[in-house]
């Protein structure tokens, strides 16, 4: 006769037993109930497609005790990780198994927004009324007038009413049980498994060593007895009454059971008609609509023109289109000329008016470092930006400026400055906003970092639909001015 195995040995990592939980802890019992539920449905669902995500804390250890794909994530972020997991592989049944400190305090916003989105997750929240792993401190779920290490005279705060919070946020399924209600947890989990959207099961868990010890419930037995005596299970309970108080019984039951569309279904319904993709996955198994070949044609790359590494820094005020200018240059060099390009931006908190800059590096070789410290080419489109970025102008570099807006002074030695009245030309073309495009035309006339066709194609790709003609007109005006400067007609 071989070694005896626990009936849940298929799902529980017996090699890691005994687990770290204290004697009488409710987390072990809850893991056991979930495992039992999963064993019951193992013929209906593929256990290879079930993943357990947990955060930090005692219950964070749970992911490591399941023989399932697991993910032990950073503190407070299991729902964020699980959301990514579900989005990239919608076939998975993602279970978030974490504690109250992890889910409701440090990760409170993830919880709220997960429920608001109705993200397709099952969240099992082990609520043990305190921060157990760190020594029993008071948390957001500690009931009023109970003692913890940091509330030795009794907690005078009001705890979260989690069922009410989650119901208000729009979760599809909200239930609360205690760790003594093993059968209910199992049934509730099986119900949740059949549904979609955000399913939240709060398990009030025995913590005899940290919370119970300070509240006259010294052993696991005492706590289970307390849970059985001090709970009421109601059908269709009102979440408003679910606040945990020590003098009134704890309300348990299923607080919300809705069938609102989950996130994945809502996304599919909304986007499939618009984009033509019926299934959204992150693992590259998506079938794109028939448009694919058309795009390929545009993306056929001509022979790359060999150029040395050029670092371009573009500076101006927010709203002048500095970022777009950099983007077009980068796209022209990278997408349409077949070279390498790296593009970074820097800007303040202001949407309009603050000095901002973008940096583009163009090279035939691979680019190792994306940031520009010593630019070879500076483009400056406003005096404020000139003040801020003058220190970056290197000796013997090339500077393009807006003739009317920038009055350069104290330029380093050997700097070659080209000026164009970009804003004035743009005004003549029709609208001031295209000053950056005029500048682009000017730059492409005077430099050979990218081909004319490439920059025109990149321009068409980057500007809003319907304004291509107008932008090309502005580009042509800038280009013309640049040609004149090149020939020496204008200084």
């Amino acid at each position: 006769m071989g070694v005896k195995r626990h009936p849940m040995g298929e799902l529980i990592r017996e090699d890691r037993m005994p687990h770290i939980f204290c004697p009488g802890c409710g987390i072990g019992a809850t893991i056991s109930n979930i495992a039992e539920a999963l064993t019951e449905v193992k013929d209906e669902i593929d256990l290879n497609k079930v993943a357990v995500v947990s955060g930090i804390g005692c219950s964070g250890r749970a992911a490591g005790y399941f023989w399932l794909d697991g993910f032990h994530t950073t503190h407070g972020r299991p729902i964020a990780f699980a959301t990514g997991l579900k989005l990239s592989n919608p076939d998975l049944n993602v279970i978030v198994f974490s504690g109250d400190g992890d889910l409701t305090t440090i990760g409170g916003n993830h919880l709220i927004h997960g429920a608001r989105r109705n993200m397709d997750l099952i969240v099992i929240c082990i609520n043990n009324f305190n921060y157990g792993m760190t020594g029993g401190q008071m948390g957001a779920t500690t009931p009023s007038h109970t003692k913890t290490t940091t509330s030795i005279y009794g907690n005078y705060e009001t705890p979260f009413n989690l069922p009410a919070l989650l119901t208000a946020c729009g979760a599809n399924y909200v239930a609360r049980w205690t760790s003594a209600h093993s059968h209910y947890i199992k049934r509730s989990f099986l119900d949740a498994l059949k549904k979609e959207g955000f399913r939240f099961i709060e398990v009030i868990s025995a913590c005899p060593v940290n919370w119970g010890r300070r509240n006259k419930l010294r052993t696991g037995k005492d706590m289970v007895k307390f849970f059985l005596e001090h709970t009421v299970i109601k059908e269709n309970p009102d979440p408003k009454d679910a606040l945990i108080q020590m003098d009134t019984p704890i309300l348990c039951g299923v607080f919300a059971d809705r069938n609102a569309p989950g996130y994945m279904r809502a996304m599919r319904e909304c986007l499939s008609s618009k984009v033509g993709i019926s299934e959204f996955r992150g693992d590259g198994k998506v079938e794109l609509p028939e448009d694919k070949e058309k795009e390929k044609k545009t993306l056929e790359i001509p022979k790359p023109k060999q150029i040395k590494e050029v670092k371009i820094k573009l500076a101006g005020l927010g709203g002048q289109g500095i970022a777009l200018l950099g983007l077009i240059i980068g796209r022209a060099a990278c997408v349409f000329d077949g070279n390498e390009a790296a593009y970074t931006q820097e800007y303040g908190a202001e949407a309009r008016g603050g000095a901002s800059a973008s940096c583009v590096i163009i090279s035939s070789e691979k680019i190792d470092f994306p940031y520009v410290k010593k630019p070879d080419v500076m483009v400056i489109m406003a005096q404020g930006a000139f003040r801020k970025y003058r220190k970056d102008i290197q000796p013997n570099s090339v500077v393009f400026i807006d003739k009317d807006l920038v009055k350069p002074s104290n330029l380093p030695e050997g700097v070659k400055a080209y000026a164009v009245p970009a804003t004035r030309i743009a005004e003549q073309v029709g609208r001031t906003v295209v000053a950056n495009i005029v500048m682009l035309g000017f730059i492409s006339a005077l430099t050979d970092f990218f081909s004319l066709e490439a920059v025109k194609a990149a321009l068409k790709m980057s500007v809003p639909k319907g304004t291509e003609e107008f932008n090309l007109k502005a580009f042509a005006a800038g280009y013309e001015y640049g040609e004149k400067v090149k020939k020496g007609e204008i200084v």
Partner: protein
Amino acid sequence: MIKKRMLLNLDKLKIPKGKPIVFAERCKGCGLCIEYCPKQVLSFSDDYNEKGYHYPVIPPEKEGECIRCGFCRQVCPDFAIYVEDEN
């Protein structure tokens, strides 16, 4: 004579029999299985496991009284006990 209400197939029903199997080295001595055994089959052992806890045992006089309800497995937080089918 009033007939006592009884199941018609009572004589055909068998009381299930089981045998609790304890993984002594996993037990942490919380005593939940002993508390919630409806037949009070289990009791604490005299000796310790390697962590220093008393684990549940079936005393010789209670041998064969287990009815395989599985409560002990359900309440055990440590995966240290389950019931084997004896029938």
